[in-house]
C-alpha cells in the first residue's frame, strides 16, 4: 500500500510563534481517499489532538474548508492521491486564510458571517403577495439567480480573496454573491436598500475582479459575475436617480 505524507500546520493562532508543520505518513487505503479521510485517519490512529472541522463528508455542508497545497478546497472533495501528485508527493494542509485560527485547521468564521449578516441575507417578502410565489424554472430570472443560490458558505472564496486579506472590513465574495441573488430576485422587497449596503467603499468597489473567489468555489458559482452584476445594477440605479427616470 502506498503511503502519502500529510503535512499539517499545527498551532493555536495565526500569529502563534510556536506554530509548526507536522508530517504524518498516511496509507493510501483506496484511490478515492480524500484529504478529509487522511485527516480523520491521523486523528484516529496517530494524534487524537489534531483539530479540524467536518460534518457531511460529501461536499454539501462547507465545514471542512482548508488550504491544500496553497489552494483553498474542501478537504472532503479533494482526493489525497491527486493532491499528492500536485504537491510533489506531499500534501500540505493549513487553515483558511483571513480568519482567526482557533487551533490547527479550525478557524473562527465569525467575521465571515458578520459580513454576510451585513447584507441582510434573508429574503424580504414583497408585501401583499401571497405565498408561494412561483418563479418558473425556465424563466430568465430563475436562470440568473439559481447558480448564486448554491452557496454553502464554506468560506473558501473569502480565504482566496486577496482584498479580504488586506481589509477585514471588505464584505467579501460570499456576502456580495448572496446580495446579488436577492437583488436579482423579484420576490425580494429589499433590493434598493441592499444595493445601498453593497455600494460602499467596503463593498463592491473594493473588488479588483481577480477571479480567485470564482476559481476556488467548490460549487462553481460565478461569484465575480455576481459582483459585476451588482456593479451594473448600482450604476443603472445611480444614473436613473440622477436623471430622475
Amino acid at each position: 500500500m502506498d503511503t502519502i505524507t500529510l503535512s499539517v500546520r499545527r498551532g493555536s493562532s495565526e500569529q502563534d510563534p510556536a506554530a509548526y508543520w507536522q508530517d504524518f505518513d498516511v496509507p493510501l487505503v483506496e484511490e478515492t481517499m480524500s484529504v478529509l479521510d487522511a485527516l480523520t485517519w491521523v486523528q484516529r490512529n496517530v494524534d487524537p489532538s489534531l483539530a479540524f472541522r467536518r460534518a457531511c463528508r460529501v461536499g454539501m455542508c462547507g465545514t471542512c474548508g482548508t488550504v491544500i497545497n496553497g489552494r483553498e478546497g474542501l478537504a472532503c472533495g479533494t482526493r489525497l492521491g491527486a493532491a499528492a501528485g500536485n504537491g510533489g508527493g506531499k500534501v500540505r494542509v493549513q487553515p483558511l486564510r483571513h480568519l482567526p485560527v482557533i487551533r490547527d485547521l479550525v478557524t473562527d468564521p465569525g467575521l465571515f458571517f458578520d459580513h454576510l449578516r451585513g447584507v441582510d441575507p434573508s429574503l424580504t417578502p414583497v408585501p401583499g403577495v401571497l405565498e408561494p410565489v412561483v418563479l418558473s424554472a425556465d424563466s430568465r430570472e430563475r436562470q440568473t439567480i439559481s447558480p448564486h443560490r448554491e452557496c454553502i458558505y464554506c468560506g473558501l472564496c473569502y480565504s482566496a480573496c486577496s482584498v479580504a486579506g488586506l481589509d477585514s472590513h471588505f464584505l467579501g465574495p460570499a456576502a456580495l454573491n448572496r446580495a446579488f441573488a436577492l437583488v436579482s430576485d423579484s420576490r425580494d422587497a429589499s433590493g434598493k436598500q441592499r444595493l445601498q449596503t453593497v455600494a460602499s467603499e467596503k463593498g463592491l468597489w473594493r473588488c479588483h475582479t481577480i477571479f480567485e473567489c470564482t476559481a476556488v468555489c467548490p460549487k462553481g458559482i460565478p461569484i465575480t459575475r455576481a459582483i459585476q452584476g451588482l456593479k451594473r445594477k448600482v450604476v443603472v440605479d445611480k444614473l436613473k436617480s440622477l436623471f430622475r427616470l
Partner: protein
Amino acid sequence: MSAPSTSQQEKMVTGFWPWFLQRVSGFLLIFLVGVHIWMTHFSGLGDVVRGHQEELVLFEIVKQRLAQGLFIFIDFSLLALVLYHGLNGMRNILLEWGPAARHAAGMTTGLWLLGVVTFIYGAWALLAFIL
C-alpha cells in the same frame, strides 16, 4: 475584527463615483490618447519623409494646432482626464495599504491637491502655445 454596520456603510457611499468616473475617463482616454498619438507622431509624417518639413514636432506647428478651439479642448481634456485617471488609480492602489487606508480622507485630499497643482503646471505649458 467586525463587519461594519449598515448605517456605517450607508455613510460610506462614496465609492461609486471614483469607480464610475475611472471607467468613463478610461473610455474617453482611449480616443483622446489616440488623437494625441496620431497628431504628435503620424500627422505630417509624409511631409517629413518627403523633406518638406525638418521635424515632426515643431513649435510653430503645435502653435497652429492650438489656435483651433477643438485642439485646445482636446489637449485640456486630455490633461485633466490623464491626471484624474492616474491619480484615482493611485488612490485605489493606496487604499490597499494599511497606513494610507487609515487616512483615506487625507490621502484623497492630498491626491486632489497634487492633481490640481499638476493641472495648473500642465495648463501653463499649454498656454505658452496659445497666448
